């Protein structure tokens, strides 16, 4: 497999993939965010308009991230996407999407806010970008913007990390704008690894200003602009066995799978592990001992 080499031109033509979190539990719960969904959408639509205003070749694709499914809600390059009906068509598709998402919900599946299917929408965005890469030598420069609020779902860890590395490989930066009160370790890592911008706005009332100041910058001008720098990145991983976020754990020496407890063999690649010493404080100690015996 050869990595796709996107051609870098000096042009500032960009393809912006916007992932919108539509988790109903997040938006309806109190104290999770200081902005209403309707207000949020108004800011986003204005932002989309401004991106499309900057260059007539710019393209915007919106993907809604639900809790059970995700789907494309808007594509500015699609046939019949008239500029004066942008908001209408987006909203209509969004309503259809939310209804579909609700139908797919299992009755007793969610307790608390739950997480959105970020891994799914990231993969969809990357698939779309790959298609654009293959469309011809002159394509816009893609980037992904996650407008995310729901807490991380540790069970999506592997899928999200795979998406992040695939984005890194095709040189697609993932920008993240956090709408909730908490930081997201996944998105911190995503932006850090792919060279995107991670931002948690303090004042969500002025979301448009944040979006236009930071996230509207095309990849070409980013070389010259002062953009928010990452303060600290949460690099913790989730274990493959119980999907818990852990600080310390066991790692398969063959395939690098992560486990929170000692196992007899690796669930991913099947390698058989040596005997764990009951009082061994960590795996690293045990590993060091093996060649000596």
């Amino acid at each position, binding site marked *: 497999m050869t990595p796709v080499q996107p051609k870098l*031109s*000096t*042009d*500032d*033509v960009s393809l912006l993939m916007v992932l919108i979190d539509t988790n109903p539990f997040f938006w309806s719960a109190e104290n999770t965010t200081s902005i209403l969904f309707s207000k949020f959408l108004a800011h986003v*639509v*204005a932002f989309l*308009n*401004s991106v*499309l*205003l*900057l*260059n*007539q*070749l710019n393209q915007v694709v919106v993907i809604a991230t639900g809790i059970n499914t995700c789907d494309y809600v808007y594509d500015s390059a699609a046939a019949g996407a*008239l*500029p*004066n*009906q*942008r*908001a209408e068509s987006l909203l209509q598709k969004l309503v259809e999407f939310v209804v579909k998402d609700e139908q797919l919900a299992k009755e007793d599946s969610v307790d608390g806010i739950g997480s959105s299917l970020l891994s799914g929408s990231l993969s969809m965005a990357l698939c779309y970008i790959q298609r654009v890469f293959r469309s011809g030598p*002159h394509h816009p420069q893609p980037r992904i913007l996650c407008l995310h609020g729901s807490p991380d779902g540790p069970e999506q860890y592997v899928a999200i990390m795979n998406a992040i590395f695939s984005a890194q490989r095709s040189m697609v930066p993932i920008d993240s704008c956090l709408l909730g009160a908490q930081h997201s370790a996944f998105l911190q890592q995503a932006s850090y690894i792919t060279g995107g911008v991670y931002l948690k706005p303090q004042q969500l009332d002025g979301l*448009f*200003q944040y979006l*236009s*100041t930071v996230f*509207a*910058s*095309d990849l*070409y*001008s980013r*070389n*010259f*602009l*002062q953009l928010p720098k990452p303060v600290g990145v949460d690099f913790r991983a989730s274990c493959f066995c119980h999907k818990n976020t852990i600080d310390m754990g066991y790692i398969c020496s063959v395939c690098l799978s992560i486990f929170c407890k000692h196992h007899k063999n690796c669930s991913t690649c099947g390698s058989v592990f040596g005997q764990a010493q009951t009082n061994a404080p960590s795996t690293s100690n045990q590993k060091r001992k093996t060649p000596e015996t």
Partner: protein
Amino acid sequence: MPQVKIIAKNFMDMVASLPAMKLDKLYDNAFICEAILRSLPPLAKKYVLQMLYIDEPVLATSIHEWVLADGESKHTVAVDRLVQLRVFIETVDRKKGTTYRLNTKFQINLQKHIVHGGVLPREPMPSTITVRLPSLEDLEAYAAEQWECFLLHLISSGQAERTTNFSSSMMKIFQRGLLSQRDKEAPKLTESGFQFLLMDTNAQLWYIIREYITNSEERGVDTADLISFLLELSFHVTGEAYNMNTLTDIQRNVIKDLADLGLVKLQQGRKESWFIPTKLATNLSISLSDLSSRKQGFVVVETNFRVYAYSSSKLLCEILRLFSRVEYQLPNLIVAAITKESLYNAFENGIMAEQASIDSLLYIITFLQQNAHPRVAERIPSVPENVTDQIRLWESDMNRVEMTPASLFDEFPSRDVFEAACDFAREYGGVLWEDSKKMRLVVKAEILGQIREFLRR
């Protein structure tokens, strides 16, 4: 030696050169604001967007903090451009320092655009009317054909099959600078004309439109109105039909001219007539560097100096004839050879001043590269190196002698006067040769007047 050169100047340069009053009037039109914004350098676009909802003037120093140290030059270019286009209004205050704020009209128009989304300049033909509209491919072919016909007409009016709508005086205006005509001789291409033919379509279009606009006053059309109409036209959807009734009388006249250039296609309906913008029109507001509008190439250059052009176009044949010897022409193929003689012919043809221009040479090579057939375009370089090198060598062969108009002074009355004259000429950078023994001095013809004046004193 002043040399008229065709620089494919941007539409916006022309807008920027308008007087402030007219410029402010232009910003009443939302489409112009949009087109202007899109024409700005990337960094300048960012600044406008960032300042869009700031009503207070912003200090120049705070804008400066937005950029990294690397972007210093880009920052200066961006701000200068914004001030030049009167998008930024500059206020210099001795206490607070320089501040900028957005042009109010410009700001309001863009704010509207962002909230409501783009608006179409006018309603397209309702789908209830059943008229067969040309497909996008047909339209593109039409535009190309129309443009080619116009160009053929421009360079040799005898060759064109159809006559254009343009009056001969209008044609004369377009030809001015491109063709030179001595008495009773067939008109010859000038150097600019030569370069013009080798430019890509978009650049050529700019040149013609620019000439068209600069001469609009003579035809009783206001320059600002014409610019705003042309920009508005570029926001129409390609391939949709629009009613002619929505245009003013002046615009209707303009659109007839534009139809000749292939920018729009006119269609007569049963009751009303319609105009359909082509890609050429919608590309008007795009900057020239855009690659997306590039056509597929058709020229293959081989290492044995042969040129194969897969095209049946008469115009292309004419262009090739400029710098190569066309050997034979098949229905879909033109075979030509680049020879020393054909190139000398090109340089002589294109030369008005005494020096062969290095630009013409570059234009030939870029023309061959830009129009390379897809098969060879993948190869790097797309034109064989030995061919480009040889063209350069031939060109430098031509240029062994450089001629400068000059004047010779001798028989100076005294050495003092001679030296003073030398110093004077040196100050103006006009000394070509001096012989202090025999007290002779050769100066460039340009400073002849000054030196005469000096010697008289």
